[in-house]
């Protein structure tokens, strides 16, 4: 019981800190991209799809997150299980700006050897949000 209370407190504290949602983060990156270029056409799920599956230096996003981001993935080096990336399959994704930025920094560096642009981040989230629940096979 005591543990349950502690856990609940931790969850509530976490929820207070991470008030973002995939939609609000998409809007943040869209606004940043629009501020950089007047010609910015807005986020594109199609471009995000291409970006997700395109191989960079050695890996693509799909190398660890699989070709279908609604599926659980596996770390390309260590084999460690990775929970699904698409918010429809895993509601814990894209709920925190800090966490999202941390993983963009690491993973863009690993796949592309550089940071991702706000436009690429917006496209990627638009793509992931365009994926609904996977129908049963």
């Amino acid at each position: 019981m005591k543990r349950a209370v502690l856990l609940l407190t931790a969850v509530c504290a976490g929820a207070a800190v991470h008030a973002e949602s995939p939609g609000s983060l998409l809007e943040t990156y869209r606004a940043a991209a629009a501020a950089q270029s007047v010609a910015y056409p807005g986020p594109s799920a199609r471009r995000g799809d291409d970006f997700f599956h395109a191989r960079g230096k050695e890996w693509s996003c799909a190398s660890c997150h699989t070709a279908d981001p609604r599926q659980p993935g596996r770390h390309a080096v260590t084999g460690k299980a990775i929970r699904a990336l698409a918010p429809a399959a895993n509601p814990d994704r894209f709920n925190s700006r800090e966490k999202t930025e941390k993983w963009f920094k690491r993973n863009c560096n690993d796949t592309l050897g550089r940071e991702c642009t706000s436009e690429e981040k917006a496209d990627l989230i638009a793509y992931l949000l365009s994926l609904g629940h996977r129908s049963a096979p």
Partner: protein
Amino acid sequence: MKTITQIRPADLVAWSVATLFLAVASHRPVVAATTDDRAVLQSECGSCHVAYPAKLLPPAAWSQVLGRLDQHYGVDASLDATSAAAVSRQLHAPRASGAQVTRTTPLPRITRSSWFRDEHDEVRADTWRRPAVKSAANCDACHRDAARGDFEEDNIRIPR
């Protein structure tokens, strides 16, 4: 009044742990790792591999690893300063000085430790290559409770 036979082993363990904790806590009121630090270690290190317990490398080796998180065995594992401090407390790793962190010397590896080789000398090469194992970094493929720091023989299940 309980006689000695009525005291369960679990009680003894709990009291021993509590006594030990109080003894340690009273001596290290500031620098002791906290529950939060453990959670940070689990979430930051444990996303990509088992959050290896501190005991698997000497403190100086952990300092080298933490000093180069942007080049972490082929991937970028950068941490913000707050998380890095928590991980470093949890791994008992002192902040590395410039001399300890060179960009050219190879990072230490748990798997190259002599104790690691001795402990695993009966594991055949093809066992390491099994898809369910994949890498020697994947402790919990065989050590089911590795994430909790438990590497006891009784808890080993080598996947087919």
